[in-house]
């Protein structure tokens, strides 16, 4: 038997034209605390609801304990959910809310032989005394012993939360699903409940699947974090890995504070950014490949500019006290860097910076140029997402073409009507000296745009491109542009190739063993 209790295989969920979850694959081990993390609308709740059975995947498969449950209705699944707004039944008191599931549950009650001599499994319901004992135990677990007779509407948010948890765990599910359960609580209460949930996870030993948009919550509680964005899984890894080695600029930006800079990988172990060459520990990139470099603020060491370790000098733009550290904003040439330091530095002074090679995290750029497959609308006019853009190209109308536009050649306008086409800002990430925005056109093409301004997420903007900046080449009709996302692997499962090979060997051995058992 595999130790994966839940396996999600290439699951896609589509609402109308929009993919809420795109081709997601994820394994959840027995007893693990897995967190689905991402900004709102990233598909994390939809994924959870598909595990619970409230949503059916448009395609793909969900396995529970090796068994296909893709089309199993929710009441037959061995999972229980703690809902975001608790969903406690208002017509029942606390005791009856918790007993709700128990009263319906059938438990094995011995076997008997029927007339044909076959063994028949008998079932019975819990007796009143058993229910009372179980509910009381659950109430004790969540520290609400004396609240059984209370109406749920008379409880505080934190107490309702506890009742919701008790109602789910009293059924002894194999997997507990939690949908942003602490979202409605205040900060202090949230911290306490985090610890209590972790403790509960340890005591019960069951699998927790937790959904949150709070990165700190995810880092604190989880064994494994699944970072999602726009329905796509970005990274599956332990909290440490997600923090120290984010898979891409989005993850780095979403989890904790970070400096994200554009650079070039000169050769193995050598990277250039901010006009300086740094040593690093990464290899295997193409020569002169444009990359993103991520530096956590606490990894930037501020030194005297004369210090012999200094790699690059910067001026201090500001230094702000943050309780346990100073947040120092530095300007290294055009690039803005944020450092956390225990000492403060005078504004305007020049300091030296040192970064350990190990602390430089280098990532492939997800895209280096905007590439769109489209058609000519007319001579010197090209279709791009429902809009006709002027260009310098003599091809006749209807010619299939591939259009390329550099990130900094796309111009965003404040007023949607000023642009040739309208679009919505999906994200905006600061990259040291400029912002990299992703704007989504109405037919779901994502433009990467480098701009000087920070655009508000969700805002409608217009897009303009200067005619001479649109590079057009003829393409074979029907050949679609490749926009394949790299396969996301579970980094907790295969931390090295050697280990994965080992795992495979084990699986083969196990399979062989099974076979011999069957034969025997």
């Amino acid at each position, binding site marked *: 038997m595999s130790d994966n209790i839940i396996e999600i295989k290439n699951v896609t969920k589509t609402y109308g034209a929009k993919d809420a979850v795109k081709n997601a694959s994820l394994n959840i081990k027995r007893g693990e605390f897995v967190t689905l993390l991402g900004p709102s609308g990233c598909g994390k709740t939809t994924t959870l609801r598909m595990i619970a059975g*409230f949503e059916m995947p448009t395609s793909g498969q969900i396995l529970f304990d090796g068994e296909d449950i893709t089309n199993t209705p929710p009441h037959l699944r061995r999972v229980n959910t703690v809902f975001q707004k608790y*969903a406690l039944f208002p017509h029942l008191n606390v005791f009856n809310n918790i007993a709700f599931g128990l009263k319906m549950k059938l438990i094995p009650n011995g076997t008997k032989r029927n007339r044909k001599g076959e063994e028949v499994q008998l079932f019975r319901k819990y007796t009143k005394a058993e229910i009372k004992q179980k509910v009381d135990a659950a109430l004790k677990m969540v520290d609400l012993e004396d609240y059984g007779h209370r109406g749920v509407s008379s409880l505080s948010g934190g107490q309702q939360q506890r009742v919701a948890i008790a109602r789910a765990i009293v059924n002894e599910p194999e997997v507990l699903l939690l949908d942003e359960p602490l979202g409605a609580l205040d900060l202090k209460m949230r911290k306490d409940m985090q610890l209590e949930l972790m403790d509960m996870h340890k005591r019960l030993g069951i699998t927790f699947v937790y959904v949150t948009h709070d990165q700190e919550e995810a880092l604190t509680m989880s064994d494994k974090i699944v970072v999602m964005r726009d329905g796509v899984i970005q990274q599956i890894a332990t909290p440490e890995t997600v923090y120290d080695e984010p898979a891409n600029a989005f993850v780095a930006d979403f989890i904790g504070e970070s400096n994200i800079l554009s650079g070039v990988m000169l050769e193995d172990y050598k990277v250039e950014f901010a006009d300086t060459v740094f040593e690093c520990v990464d290899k295997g990139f193409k020569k002169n490949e444009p990359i993103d470099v991520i530096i956590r603020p606490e990894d930037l060491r501020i030194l005297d500019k004369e210090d012999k370790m200094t790699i690059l000098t910067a001026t201090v733009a500001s230094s702000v006290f943050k309780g346990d550290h100073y947040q120092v904003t530095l300007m290294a040439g055009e690039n803005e860097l944020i450092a956390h330091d225990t000492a403060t530095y005078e504004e305007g002074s020049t300091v030296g910076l040192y970064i350990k090679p190990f602390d430089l995290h280098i990532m492939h750029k997800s895209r280096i140029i905007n590439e769109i497959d489209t058609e000519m609308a007319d001579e010197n006019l090209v279709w791009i997402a429902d809009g006709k853009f002027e260009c310098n190209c003599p091809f006749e109308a209807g010619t299939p073409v591939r259009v390329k536009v550099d990130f900094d050649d796309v111009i965003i306008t404040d007023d949607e009507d000023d642009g040739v086409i309208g679009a919505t800002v999906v994200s905006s990430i600061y990259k040291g000296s400029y912002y990299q925005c992703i704007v989504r056109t109405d037919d779901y093409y994502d433009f990467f745009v480098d701009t000087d301004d920070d655009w508000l997420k969700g805002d409608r903007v217009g897009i303009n491109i200067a005619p001479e900046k649109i590079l057009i080449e003829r393409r074979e009709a029907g050949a679609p542009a490749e926009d394949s996302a790299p396969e996301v692997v579970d980094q907790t499962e295969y931390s090295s190739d050697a280990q994965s090979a080992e795992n495979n060997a084990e699986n083969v051995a196990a399979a062989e063993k099974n076979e011999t058992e069957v034969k025997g």
Partner: protein
Amino acid sequence: MTNAAVAVSKPKWRFKLTKRVFSYPYVLFMLLFVVIPLVMILVNAFLDADNNLTLENFADFFTDKSSLVILANSLLVGVITTAICLIIGYPLAYFLSKMPSGRVLVLFYVLPMWVNFLIRTLATKAIFIAMDVTLGMGTVIFGMVYNYLPFMILPLHTTLSSIDRSYIEAAQDLGADSSTVFLKTVLPLSVSGIISGITMVFIPTISTFAISQLLSNGKIFLFGDSIQMKFEQGLYGVGSIMSLVMLVFVLVSNFIINRASRKSGLSVGRSLW
């Protein structure tokens, strides 16, 4: 001297437009059409034909067997009508609340109410006669259900469609199949809608008139009809007593219904009251 000059020279009573002013028309209306008629009924109940104080009217009513039979009949028709409305209305409201276009479809059930009920009832009667249906208890109850069904559907639909989906999902999650989900969550959560539906159908049906008369060719006499007849015959005393009895029944049923809704302790969903 102009009017303006008069106004300026007499500043004793100045009109101020406060919130309270807006309630005056309603107070006047209440006085004229609710309080005064009630007082008149109360006074009439204790007067005989020659305007002497008497308790004769009470004795007349409570010893007259036919009046009591009519009262019992009215209550029976009310109970039957309400039950039928609930049996037809609940499933209908339930399915409408599940449909995305339910809000529009509900309008179709409300639409007939835009036609005057007398015209509707006369039309129903014409249809029955054309179909050769004998007019009697059956047709009366049909007419009642037809007239009062929207009053059952509306509050039920409002309550049912305001039940949060997460309650249903929570019940499913805890192992309830669809019939258990209905019995253990949807039904108890819609009690407030059921109660307001019952109130809105039962109370008008026991006091209604004309429908029964028209749809039974005057064979079936309900309490409302008999009150109307007593007044037509000039028996104001007995008519008033009967009105008071009616009022007591309405108050009592209102009280029972209110108690029931308080006992279920529900502020869940919206009800019409």
